[in-house]
């Protein structure tokens, strides 16, 4: 087991390094003018711009930039943002933004999982009856309709009817409600549809038929036997979901003016903020690899049938 974990860790680190170096090098292929906004380009001449770029260290060879970043990284310095928030230390930015997004992420994860799993169970229980159809309709609706449209509708119309604030205010708890609900709409659908699917699959298994034949009620079998088995393929994603509560939603954070991480990466890429992009990519790559790793461990832990290493069998 220890060997497995060690092996896995090394490979995870390799993945992260490859991802990071690839992105780091790709960023250095971006055009030099991309470091400036149109306003800056208009008010400055070529020489002034080159002077600026040189002073920012952007004209150094990519490998020396990489080396500098790695050296600073191990000294605990993530560098400063270049264009999105010029000169602002990235550590400060992340410390400001992550808590807000994580709070929303956690709330919506709890909400999405609770409602989604309940809904999935309900749909499986009443398979091919009205409840199932309604649930399927919800899932399909959330997936089919462009989210921009119903999110905007919720923000303006629902907030008007329920007398809730249009945007998020930290000091007004009621303003947290709508963004959280909006954030969890998708995950409710996701949990519901997959739990339903896995439960329906499990229903055809012999042990379920056996339990039913022995006279256990459907409700009891569903809850005591079926749910536990059906939840395992979902549980594998739980660590990733928990880790990724720190990545916000671009559209929802923009609509509700939430000062979080949503859209930070997109914005940084579009504005060619190399320093910010590489830190965020590094962070997300670590989280994602870690999430998959923890997911496997979790499943092996909760499901004794699963063995991670082949040679142990």
């Amino acid at each position, binding site marked *: 087991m220890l060997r497995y974990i060690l092996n896995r860790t090394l490979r995870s680190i390799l993945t992260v390094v490859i991802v990071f170096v690839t992105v780091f090098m790709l960023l250095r292929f971006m055009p030099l003018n991309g470091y*400036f906004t149109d306003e800056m380009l*208009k008010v400055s001449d070529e020489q002034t711009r080159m002077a600026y770029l040189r002073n920012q260290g952007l004209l150094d060879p990519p490998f020396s930039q990489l080396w500098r970043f790695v050296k600073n990284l191990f000294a605990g310095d993530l560098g400063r943002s270049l264009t999105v928030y010029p000169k602002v230390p990235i550590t400060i930015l992340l410390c400001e*933004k992550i808590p807000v997004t994580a709070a929303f992420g956690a709330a919506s994860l709890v909400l999405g999982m609770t409602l989604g799993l309940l809904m999935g169970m309900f749909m499986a229980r009443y398979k091919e009856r009205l409840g199932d159809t309604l649930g399927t309709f919800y899932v399909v609706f959330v997936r089919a309709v462009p989210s921009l449209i119903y999110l905007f509708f919720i923000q303006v119309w629902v907030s008007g009817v329920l007398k809730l604030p249009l945007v998020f205010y930290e000091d007004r708890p009621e303003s947290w409600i709508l963004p959280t609900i909006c954030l969890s709409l998708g995950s409710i659908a996701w949990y519901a549809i997959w739990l339903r699917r896995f439960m329906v699959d499990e229903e055809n298994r012999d042990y379920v038929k056996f339990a039913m034949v022995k006279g256990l009620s459907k409700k009891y079998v569903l809850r005591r036997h079926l749910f536990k088995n059906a939840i395992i393929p979902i549980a594998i994603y739980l660590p990733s979901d928990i880790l990724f509560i720190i990545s916000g939603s671009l559209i929802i954070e923009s609509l509700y003016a939430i000062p979080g991480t949503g859209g930070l990466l997109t914005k940084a890429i579009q504005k060619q903020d190399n320093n910010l992009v590489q830190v965020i990519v590094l962070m997300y790559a670590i989280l994602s690899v870690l999430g998959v790793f923890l997911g496997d461990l979790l499943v092996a832990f909760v499901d004794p049938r699963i063995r991670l290493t082949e040679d142990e069998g």
Partner: protein
Amino acid sequence: MKRTVSLFLAIVLLASLACACQGPASDPGVQPTDGVPSGTGAGEAQPTPPEQAEPLEYVDLYKTYFTSEYPSLNYYTTVYGGVRGLAANCVEALVEPDEYGLYQPAMALSWESNEDCTVWTFHLREGVEWVDHQGNPTGMKVTAQDYVDAVRYVGDPLNGAYSLRVVRDLIEGLYDYYWGLDDIDSGTDTTTVRADLVASFDETVGVKALDEYTVQYTLSASAPYFLSLIEGSMLLLPCEYSYVTEMGEDFGIDNQHMLYCGAYYLSTFERDKKIVMTANPHYWDKDSVTIRSIEQQRLGDTMTTLEMFKRGEIDECVVESEEYSSLLGTEWEKYLAPNSFSSSTNYLWLDFGSDNPEFNAFIHNENFRKALQHSIDRESIAYLREPVTPSRLVRNTIIAETLIYDDRGVDYTDYPGLAEIKATDYYDAGKARAYMEAAVAELCDASGSILGVDAATVDMLPVAQFDVDGKLPVTLLYVGTDDEAEILMAQLLEVMIEEAIGADLIDVQLAFATGGFYSTVADPLNYDVYYDSLSVPYGDPGSQLSRLTSDGAENVGYYEVPEYDALIEQALMESDIQKRYALFAQAEAYLVNGAYVIPFISSLRGYYMTRIEPYTGPLMQFGSIKYKGMRVSAQILTADQLAAISSAYEEKKADRLSGN
């Protein structure tokens, strides 16, 4: 009836304005309200403003919004407009405009300049202290040295000041100082020691502290407009050098890493969320500050601003033309007031070095350019932004009207040459066709082949790639951004030009660039025609016109007009205002008549609703805003009220300007 009411109202307003100017505005009878209780429905939330002419009630909290994030608060290095607004309020400039745009003392008590406006001396107010983000004095005084150090700070390439060109090229010696340092940094100059050059600043650069409270600027060219440059450029704001160097790169990353000496300080700065400006209790003119606190909150999507305004969460909102029609017939209609002015002008830029051989053959022909100039239905384009009276947006001159006045109070755009252009209605399909036919006669043979042009594939990637056949119709590539409104405008332009000139003679093709427009389209010349807007950065026609010379920074299409260059050069040397403006007007008229650039409308956008009483604060016309002296009404102002205030103001302004 309505007229008399509004007149009466205007008189009352003016009276109250006069009162407010004399004494402290915090009337004990006026209770600060928190606006409308939040979360209530739009319908009952708004108390209807009284129709009778009662004096307005004021509140001392102003709630507004911003849409794009504040990148940094360092006003020397940030070009973002919002930061200019903050800096103008938080850091006191030497002078400030009054409500008519005339300059009055701010940090400087008095000033004088020499005969040809190349040496400006300012005598500063004594005893003003820098305060921190809690409004506590820091013990550091604002002195003449702080104004000198501002120039020292921006003059060092390592500090990365943007929009530096005007100041760098104007202040004596600063240009050489800046490039001297840059040569050392880039390794071109290895003989000079950086510290030595930095130490030479006080001798070589034309800004000096004559004593603790007297600062003198020596300029390399005549600058009668220098006071408006102080208003328009953030780079001349004072800088407490010991503090700024101590902060280093941290200067301006948030409100705690800054110092304040203006009417307000930043008491709250939540990045991307909320900024609160609080009145500075140690401000030299604190009695004129009527709004105690200004809250700016971020709204990520402009679509929500109208709704936020309706719910009373913000005190002012822009109403786009589409929203305008949805408000007609509702209770909000009476508040819809037209935006009155924008100093920014929209131009069509023409590419004189185009890779498209057909267009390149034609663009150097004046008749062709005039055909384009006459083919654009300005009102139809303006309709996209202002559906009621689109003609308000039409602008044929480069410099905006009612912006720059000479010492007699005459508007620069009424000078000979420009007055005629201003009065011309350029859209005329018949003329456009006639000019085009004239151009065709000169440039094509009888069979419709363009002389000297062969079939070719035009490569303007990543923007566009297309084939031309060297025959009529002339292919013209119009490039726009992927912004929705601009797509509509481009498509409209295409139809318009082809209808006026005739599709047999011109074929407009459209392309839309994503990402940075300047770097993908304008700079690499990947266009034949595009549209852009420019606003006047300070109160001199030369601020704009000198950028449009053959080697000027804004001449993105690389036309060559030596006659224009000569006139501009002459005008820039002239220190007599009237002669100077006459020369500029002559040059501008030359450029527009030759259709080297085609100004067509102003950047004015639709309508607004507000609680701010207009013309109560300093009239800042060059990109920033000062809240000092401004008053926020407890009620939304109706369009009638605003119109009355505006007409009374215009009368008064005309008096003041001509009286000077």
